[in-house]
């Protein structure tokens, strides 16, 4: 049926028109034509009315929807004024327009019955409803294709921000949004809380709280709403370790730990807020899980007026997820009980896994940080070292090497694959050892040694003397029938004297060797050198004697006797025997081209110890990220450290004052970070640091900064849009596979959900849940489902209490009007505002003709009665 044509709602009843001719015959034949026609018309009209004749036509009727914000964020004056102006606004609108009213208020608007009747519809919604909600409702009140307009009287502060779709819908329909700006109250308020980074058990957490006020002195307090944290995520398993030791890490503030409903976790100083301020609040969670907190802003004087209800600007409920401790793989060596000590020192922020020698080392992908503590290179298998390098470089694993006498250089790490990752060079000094030697050269200068032989003997002597160092001793005994010290035993440094003595030697005389050997023996016996040698150079034409007894005695006294047969040709068994008895060697110097190298000693080298015992004064550097605040002026002196040298590009936080050797250094290596501490963290070298109350916290902070940036290689974002919940996971590295997700139900049991891949490396999990439920999730990498990260989405997280909305983040009313083709005006101009309409692409209305048919039928009835009663021509009786 087309528009503008008349249509019938019950067309089947038109069949009754076929019965109309019966009027002329029943119950009696009708002769009065006029009456018959009138009666036919009458019944015909009634039948038409029964069939429901209607006409759909284009209508000029306008639909006006007024939205009146009477919420607590609007000043009392403007609320009253806008309500009072309603009547004038209605009067200014075109007559006959269809008017509806939506009031944002917690109580119905007070109106007279007459004013209420002027509206076709009056709805009241809670003042905590968002402007998006009421704009959608307003749009719904205007039928499709009709002309209309929406007029919004509000301060623009909306509890929900997603008004885009509603405004776009109005624009698409051509419906203008007229806006009237009301004034909002300027009470102090908390407008936002930012949590940078991850909150982890045992580590300091920082909340950045945004507060806004015209001018107010405020103190912020953070309360725990749970008597104790709920342990979530691993049923039947302890999520973290509690530390009963007071460690001063909380900067003197109470960190909770005992059951108390309203325990203060953190408190700020009193601050003067003029405009907007960002206030940090720090606290250290003691257990992993989901934490319910309450944030309050107290005005000056301790007043919490206005802070009683969650809807006030000065109180906010928070739900936060506290992650599991950092997983630390402890590989210790020399120090007994090192891991226990370390665990106690670091507290609940670290979960230590220790591997004893011989045990399989856990997969590094399940760890955030590896600590090699005073362990030698040989104790760590080479394949593991290679794996460690790969894990640090390509996977972002953190590595810390610490220790004393069994680590770094002394531990033999210099040539290991790990060494190149360290921010320090491993210094290891070696000492070359050249032991002292005393040499007595006995030269045969008998007549048989004449000619070339004596020359050869001198050459061999010179060669032997040349190897000696200044701390060695040398003497020359000649025998030619008698014995004689050509050069008495003296330092080899007196080379000139010795050479002269050698040069003076000349062959001549007899050969009596034995006394010369005795002389040499007596000369060497009292000399204090490491080695003692006697070198006999002869042509072997010597006398016999009790040489064996003498030489054996000499060798027992540490004096070795070697012999050199000088001259060509023959072999001398006698000289061989002398060398045997004297535990020396036999040489043969047959000519100047075959002069023997007489070995008198073997130089050696040994490692000097790199561990420096203390006390060692320290010098500090580095920023508050390492130190957790202002850097201390000084620290107690160390009791020992391992000497090392800084590599260029590394950051040195602690060094020795005297020589500038690095004690604590760190740098980025590949995707990971490597830190070195050249002393035992819990051993004798750092014993003095026990007196420093901040030691545990400092070490924890250093290790935390060294550890992997994130346990699960995805960045997760959770959000709500009404009933729809979605969690997006963005892979931070390549090849990490899929993420996994579980939602915790009311009984804290994990229920698996699914991520769907939406783009390479991007995953989405989406489901529908009521806005009034807080949602808790566990997220992981699918390959390692036991390594989970917590995530919480508070109930109504897409809404903010009205009194906590940042005025700068409200709806820009003027811009909203501009975007939709409406007008933006103030209260003062509202009285004569006519609210021009728009849209009306196909404004339809229905005209019902049935009543008109009935009116016509009534007139016809009256006419028919008149016809029956009108006087006629007189008739004869």
């Amino acid at each position, binding site marked *: 049926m087309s528009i503008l044509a008349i249509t019938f709602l019950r067309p089947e009843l038109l069949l009754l028109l076929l019965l109309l001719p019966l009027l002329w015959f029943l119950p009696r034949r009708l002769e009065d034509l006029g009456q018959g026609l009138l009666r036919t018309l009458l019944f015909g009209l009634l039948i038409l009315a029964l069939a429901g004749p209607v006409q759909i036509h284009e209508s000029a009727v306008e639909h006006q929807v007024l939205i009146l914000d009477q919420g607590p964020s609007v000043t009392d004056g403007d609320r009253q004024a806008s309500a009072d102006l309603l009547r004038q606004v209605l009067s200014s609108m075109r007559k006959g327009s269809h008017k509806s009213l939506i009031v944002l208020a917690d109580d119905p608007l007070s109106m007279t019955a007459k004013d209420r009747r002027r509206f076709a519809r009056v709805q*009241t919604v809670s003042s905590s409803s968002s402007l998006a909600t009421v704009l*959608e409702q307003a749009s719904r009140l205007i039928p499709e294709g009709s002309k209309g307009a929406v007029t919004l009287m509000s301060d623009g502060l909306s509890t929900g921000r997603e008004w885009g*779709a509603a405004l776009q819908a109005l624009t698409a329909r051509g419906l203008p949004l007229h806006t009237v700006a009301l004034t909002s109250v300027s009470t102090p308020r908390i407008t936002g809380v930012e949590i940078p980074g991850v909150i982890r058990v045992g580590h300091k957490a920082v909340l950045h709280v945004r507060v806004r006020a015209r001018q107010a002195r405020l103190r912020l307090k953070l309360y725990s709403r749970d008597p104790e944290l709920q342990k979530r995520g691993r049923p039947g398993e302890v999520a973290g370790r509690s530390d009963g030791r007071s460690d001063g890490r909380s900067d003197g503030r109470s960190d909770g730990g005992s059951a108390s409903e309203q325990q203060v976790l953190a408190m700020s100083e009193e601050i003067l807020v003029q405009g907007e301020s960002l206030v940090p609040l720090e606290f250290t969670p003691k257990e992993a899980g989901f934490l319910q907190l309450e944030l309050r802003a107290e005005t000056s004087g301790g007043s919490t007026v206005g802070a009683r209800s969650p809807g006030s600007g000065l109180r906010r409920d928070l739900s936060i997820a506290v992650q599991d401790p950092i997983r630390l793989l402890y590989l210790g060596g020399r120090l007994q009980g090192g891991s226990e000590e370390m665990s106690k020192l670091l507290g609940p922020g670290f979960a230590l896994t220790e591997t004893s020698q011989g045990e399989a080392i856990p997969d590094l992908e399940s760890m955030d940080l590896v600590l090699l503590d005073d362990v030698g290179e040989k104790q760590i298998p080479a394949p593991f070292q290679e794996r460690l390098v790969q894990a640090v470089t390509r996977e972002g694993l953190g590595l810390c090497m610490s220790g004393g006498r069994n680590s770094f250089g002394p531990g033999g790490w210099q040539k290991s694959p790990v060494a190149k990752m360290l921010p320090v060079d491993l210094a290891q000094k070696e000492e070359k050892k050249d032991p002292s030697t005393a040499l007595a050269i006995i030269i045969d200068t008998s007549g048989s040694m004449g000619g070339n032989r004596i020359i050869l003997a001198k050459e061999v002597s010179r060669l032997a003397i040349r190897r000696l160092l200044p701390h060695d001793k040398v003497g020359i005994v000649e025998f030619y029938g008698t014995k004689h010290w050509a050069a008495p035993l003296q330092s080899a440094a007196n080379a000139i004297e010795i050479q002269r003595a050698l040069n003076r030697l000349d062959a001549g005389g007899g050969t009596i060797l034995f006394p010369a050997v005795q002389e040499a023996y007596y000369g060497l016996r009292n000399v204090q050198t490491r080695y003692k040698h006697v070198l006999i150079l002869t042509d072997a034409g010597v006398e016999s004697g009790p040489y064996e007894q003498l030489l054996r005695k000499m060798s027992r006294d540490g004096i070795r006797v070697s012999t050199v047969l000088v001259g060509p040709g023959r072999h001398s068994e006698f000289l061989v025997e002398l060398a045997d008895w004297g535990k020396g060697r036999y040489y043969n110097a047959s000519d100047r081209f075959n002069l023997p190298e007489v070995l008198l000693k073997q130089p050696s080298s040994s490692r000097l110890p790199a561990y420096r015992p203390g006390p060692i004064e320290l010098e500090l550097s580095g920023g508050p990220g390492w130190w957790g605040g202002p850097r201390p002026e000084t620290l107690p002196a160390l009791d020992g450290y391992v000497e090392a040298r800084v590599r260029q590009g590394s950051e040195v936080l602690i060094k020795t004052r005297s020589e500038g050797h690095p004690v604590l250094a760190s740098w*980025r290596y590949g995707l990971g970070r490597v830190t070195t501490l050249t002393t035992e963290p819990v051993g004798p070298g750092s014993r003095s640091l026990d007196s420093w109350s901040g030691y545990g916290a400092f070490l924890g902070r250093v290790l935390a900064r060294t550890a992997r940036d994130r346990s699960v290689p995805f960045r997760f974002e959770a959000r709500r849009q009404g009933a729809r919940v979605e969690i997006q996971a963005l892979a931070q590295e390549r090849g990490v596979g899929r993420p996994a997700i579980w939602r915790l139900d009311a009984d804290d049991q994990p229920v698996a959900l699914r991520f769907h891949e*939406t783009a390479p490396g991007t995953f989405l999990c989406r489901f529908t849940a009521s806005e009034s439920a807080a949602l808790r999730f566990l997220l992981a990498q699918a390959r390692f489902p036991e390594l989970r990260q917590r995530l919480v989405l508070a109930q109504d997280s897409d809404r903010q209490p009205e009194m906590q909305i940042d005025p700068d983040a409200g709806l820009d009313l003027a811009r909203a009007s501009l975007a939709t083709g409406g007008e933006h005006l103030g209260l003062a101009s509202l009285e004569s505002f006519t609210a021009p309409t728009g849209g009306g692409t196909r404004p339809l*209305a229905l005209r019902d003709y049935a009543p008109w048919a009935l009116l016509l039928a009534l007139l016809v009835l009256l006419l028919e009665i008149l016809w029956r009663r009108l006087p006629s021509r007189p008739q004869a009786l």
Partner: protein
Amino acid sequence: MSLLALSLPLFLLGIPVLAFLLFSLHRLRIRHQRMEVVTTLFWQEAIEEARARVLVQRFRHPLVYAFLLLISLLLWSGFSDPRLASDPKAQSLILVEGARVHQGSTPEDALAAVQDLLSEMPSEGRSVIWCGARERTLLASGEHAALLEARWQKLEPQATPSHLAAIVGRLARQQRETPLATRLPLHLILVGTETLPKDLLSRLPRDMSVQRLEVEPRSTRAAIELVALGMAPASSGAWNRVDLLLRLRAALANPKSPPRLELAGSPVTASPSHRVEDGVDRYLFTDLPAEGQLLQVFAGGSKMALGSILLPKRRVLQVQVEEGLPPELLAVLEADPGLRLVDSRPDVRIGTSTVTDGVPHLWLDPKSREPVFRFTQTEGSRGETSLRRRFGSLGLDGIDAEDPDVDGAGAAKSGSQGVQVRVDIRDGSRRSIQMPLALLGHGYNFVQSRVFPLFFAQALRWLTAVEEAPRRVAAGEILRGDPSARTDAQGVRLDPVGASFYLPRAGLYQRADGAVLAASLLSPMDDSERAVLPPLQLDSAGSSSMLFWITLLALLALVAEWILVRTGRMP
């Protein structure tokens, strides 16, 4: 009760007028009729009746008068169009699925079913809403049901995912937020869907119910469903390339030919890797050229594109670096495949001087000692949020300052304390970034941090307004963090006014600067456990049209009157 056509005073005035008219007519003498009589005993009456020249008679036959008056009043009441009490005791919303996918019936069948339903319901308190790309009220409360068909014409299921669950959720929230004093029970009747998420249904307010209207016959699901269409920077590392993920679900288990891609109208010849996961075909195309072209997906031999996505235009930025800057900075810039160091005509400049000549500039302030990254941006509060998100994830505030108060020899001044680096964002007319040159020095660990190369990569692209294109653009969803106004395919400029832009349906959307987005109809991927809705059980109050009954009564009365008049029993 109310009167639609007449005001009450006018109606009441009409009654005595009618009565008087009828009285006057009733006083008129009845016309004579020739009648044969069998006796002359009626002469007296005959003489009485035959009295000449008398127009009126005395009032006689009061019952007849009353009967005629009753009929007249019925007709008069009918004309005033009375209605029964119009204050509804409950609200009924009929929500009709307007999304293209998962249509359980044809629009014509749905219309017929809804019209039948409307005939059983009073017009007050009930509305019919079409839930397509946006909600359309096809029948407002109190409107005649006949308007429905006229407004329903030309409505076709739209390229948008189903929003019924979200709408039910929103209505539930609105119901909860309505003060009890003014709240009416809310009944939702869904047309075109059988199930809703169980969790949602279990948390409905007590005075709210959801039922479904059975509609026959059923149509089949779409042959091929586009589950996912998204892109990401190429895993090969090539700057001007992207990888594309395509996931398809086919309703019929037939040998499927791989999907066909066209880039700016030309076929894409790259062969994707393929695997099947949970019945969904997954295709990964790698190293597609990122030149700002429209990529369309065709499947199943269809000539109509199943979806489309605009690939980003990833050009290499020309960067001019001032002489004398730290070598670490140069190393980082040279290692970025999306940057090229040039000596002239740069897209962006890095240096210590403040002369910008219009070229976007990253200023390394040699004099400043305050460890602050200062960003000047032009997009107001939403721009600030977007900026904080872009740079906040880098962890700039984790950079350590050893001590800002160092003297020339590097020794800390007494009483000084180390601080952490801050990020400061302010509004301005042009984008700029300012940071102290000292941040690249030994007093800070910025250069050693993981953030260092990432910061410059992001900063230079932000300065030149190179945006990271959204990886996925889906109809019926909002573009997180993007408040830009855009013009849709119908030429309507849609401005979210500071909120995230909403993509009502599949198609192209263009920004004022010419940037285009292509939204596709993608599977909503909602894995919520669903519950079957109970079928509608009408507690029929029937139509409130009294007019029909009054007319019928009047007709019957007039039939009786006619019979009485024609048989002479009534004058």
